[in-house]
């Protein structure tokens, strides 16, 4: 059986990303229309739309295994792509697909289960000879045990959700006094997010770099890596800016870490695209962190420097094809940087700022790739993630990529919500970032504020406030604000979003 129609069990930019490749491969796609986003952009990319707007359930359909299987069967889709998030790392969902003779575009349920359970993954890594940070033998049942084990390992330690990922259920503990509270929060967060409150403890590596390797394996036992991604620019374990390759690795270290990544993937007979995450300390020691058994948000930076379409590879592998490339065929060309433009307020602790896109335009320069599920008029709804777009920029080397990124950031035009753009404008001008001298602590420790403004921006804003005041209070006809060329405009009257303090 070959894939001829794919149900996209996802939404937003990743749904579109998958459908773009499917279209190139002449494979039909089905997207699900939900009541939360009945006009979402991803729907326009599908060959077929399954209308699920009548469903008033509180759980999004993208998290409902039974419904998704039903939709796949009802639309005669013989394959499912889970994207990332939602059910992308659910062994149960993958198994259910197989049980119903639906091709799951991803790894085996067994690999998802083993890598998804961090305790099993740890044991696998240990037996495969992969360097690991010291940690607890198994899950921790209560605060007292947590304190006891942390004493043994030595502070700081990190509490992690056994079924976790994406930073949820994770807490760093630096002092025994903090343990009780942190243990309870992490455990509660884990239960909420993953339906599993179990947590374990690891030695916390202070100020590491986050380096991950892209893996590609097939059902014939071939596994290769496509180089690394540098994902150290993160806040509370949420990645914000990623690049490929990493300036922290030379060919020798790349080869060594890549071989380890392939080795851990082999331990679960991995096939499809996957990511092995490592921490790299200042002495260039690296430690296995976890393996993500899905396509990653940041996969485009790898695509840019390798020229390989990862979604296409996933589909081919799911069709039973062998990965034809050998490790020595993989060449890394140039440099790529991705900025995650999220609807978040960097001046208010990165609080989500959902809302409607009033105007939206993205640069179209040849060195820019935009992956987005948003267009003018779209809404960022608070039920889903706050991503607006991924701005992916290439250059012949890191210096050029940063220069291009700086230019591209000034060409992004978003009105309607606050965004992480001012943060990226700051990062690309930061000397430590430019020098490649940064760790996962960069956002929290190396930045004094989270936005960049040019010298005159605040003054121009002050001018506008003063203009408004004059219009409101002085009402002199003589006030001469020149609106030539543009439409005559009273910002006071035109602005719809105005509210009272």
């Amino acid at each position, binding site marked *: 059986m070959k894939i001829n129609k794919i149900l996209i069990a996802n939404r937003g930019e990743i749904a579109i990303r998958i459908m773009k490749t499917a279209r190139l491969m002449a494979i039909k796609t089905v997207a699900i229309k939900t009541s939360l986003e009945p006009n979402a952009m991803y729907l326009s990319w599908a060959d077929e739309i399954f209308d699920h707007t009548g469903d008033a359930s509180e759980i999004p359909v993208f998290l409902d295994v039974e419904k998704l299987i039903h939709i796949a069967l009802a639309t005669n889709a013989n394959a499912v792509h889970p994207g990332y998030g939602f059910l992308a790392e659910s062994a149960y969902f993958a198994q259910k697909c197989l049980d119903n003779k639906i091709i799951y575009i991803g790894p085996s349920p067994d690999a998802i289960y083993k890598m998804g359970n961090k305790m099993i993954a740890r044991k696998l890594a240990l037996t495969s000879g992969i360097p690991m940070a010291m940690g607890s033998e198994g899950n921790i049942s209560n605060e007292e045990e947590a304190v006891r084990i942390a004493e043994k390992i030595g502070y700081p330690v990190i509490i992690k959700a056994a079924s976790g990922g994406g*930073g*949820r259920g994770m807490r760093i503990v630096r002092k025994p006094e903090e343990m009780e*509270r942190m243990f309870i*929060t992490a455990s509660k*967060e884990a239960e*909420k997010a993953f339906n599993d409150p179990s947590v374990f403890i690891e030695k916390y590596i202070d100020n590491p770099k986050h380096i991950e390797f892209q893996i590609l394996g097939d059902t014939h036992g071939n596994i290769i890596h496509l180089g690394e991604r540098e994902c150290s620019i993160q806040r*509370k374990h949420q990645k914000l800016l990623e690049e490929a390759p990493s300036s922290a690795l030379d060919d020798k270290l790349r080869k060594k870490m890549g071989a380890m990544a392939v080795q851990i993937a082999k331990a679960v007979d991995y096939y499809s695209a996957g990511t092995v995450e490592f921490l790299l300390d200042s002495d260039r020691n690296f430690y296995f962190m976890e393996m993500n058994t899905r396509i990653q948000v940041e996969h485009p930076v790898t695509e840019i420097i390798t020229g390989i379409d990862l979604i296409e590879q996933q589909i081919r592998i799911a069709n039973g094809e062998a990965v034809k490339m050998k490790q020595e065929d993989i060449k890394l060309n140039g440099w790529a940087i991705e900025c995650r433009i999220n609807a978040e*307020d960097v*001046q*208010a602790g990165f*609080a*989500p700022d959902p809302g409607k896109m*009033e*105007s939206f335009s993205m640069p179209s320069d040849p060195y820019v790739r935009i992956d987005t599920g948003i267009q003018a008029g779209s809404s960022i709804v*608070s039920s889903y*993630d*706050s991503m607006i777009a991924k701005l992916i920029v290439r250059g012949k080397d890191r210096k050029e990529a940063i220069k291009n990124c700086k230019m591209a950031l*000034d060409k992004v*035009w*978003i*009105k309607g919500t*606050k*965004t992480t*753009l*001012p943060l990226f404008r700051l990062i690309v001008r930061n000397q430590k970032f430019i020098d490649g001298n940064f760790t996962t602590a960069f956002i929290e420790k190396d930045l004094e504020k989270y936005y960049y*403004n040019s010298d005159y*921006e*605040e*003054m*121009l*804003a*002050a*001018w*506008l*406030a*003063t*203009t*408004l*005041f*004059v219009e409101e*209070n*002085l009402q*002199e006809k003589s*006030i*001469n*604000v*020149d*609106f030539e060329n*543009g*439409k005559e*405009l009273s*910002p*006071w009257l*035109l*602005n719809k*979003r*105005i*509210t*009272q*303090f």
Partner: protein
Amino acid sequence: MNDKIKIDKLYALSSENRKFSFKLPLKNKIRIGKRDYIVQLRSDEKLGTYILWKNRKYPVEIVRSRQNKYEILFNDISYTFTVETPFSLQRLKVINSRKGMIDSEVIKAPMPGKIIEVLVREGSSVLRGEPVVILEAMKMQNEIQSPVNGRVTKVNARPGTNVMKEDVLVEIKVE
């Protein structure tokens, strides 16, 4: 505004106490060094409202206003200004010099979300950096911490309830 009083200047004071002065009548020119630069407020269908300055367009939005207080979103950054006349500025200086230290602090919700847990009670003493409320937003549990050392005077947050951005969660008397 009494039109008998001649006002020749306005000041925009930022929340960080930076002062920008503008001569009246207000012009669409701003002097930098020895040169005047034209600043234009424009709007079109595609881009919405924007300011054109030195050949570059900056997205701009008026987020809130009340009396002489304006919150402006300029190129994705929020600025809050109070616009003062020379007289009101003088008055403000007098008031500020009389006012002593700020002695109470309100903790507001930094984002909309659901209160998971309230960690303090009225009368509790708190230290700077101590978490007072756990607020869940976009599936993340966030610790809202006290910015000051003090004593809790009022608790508005209730576990299980939803709050809006800027809702006052806890009030603290600085000690």
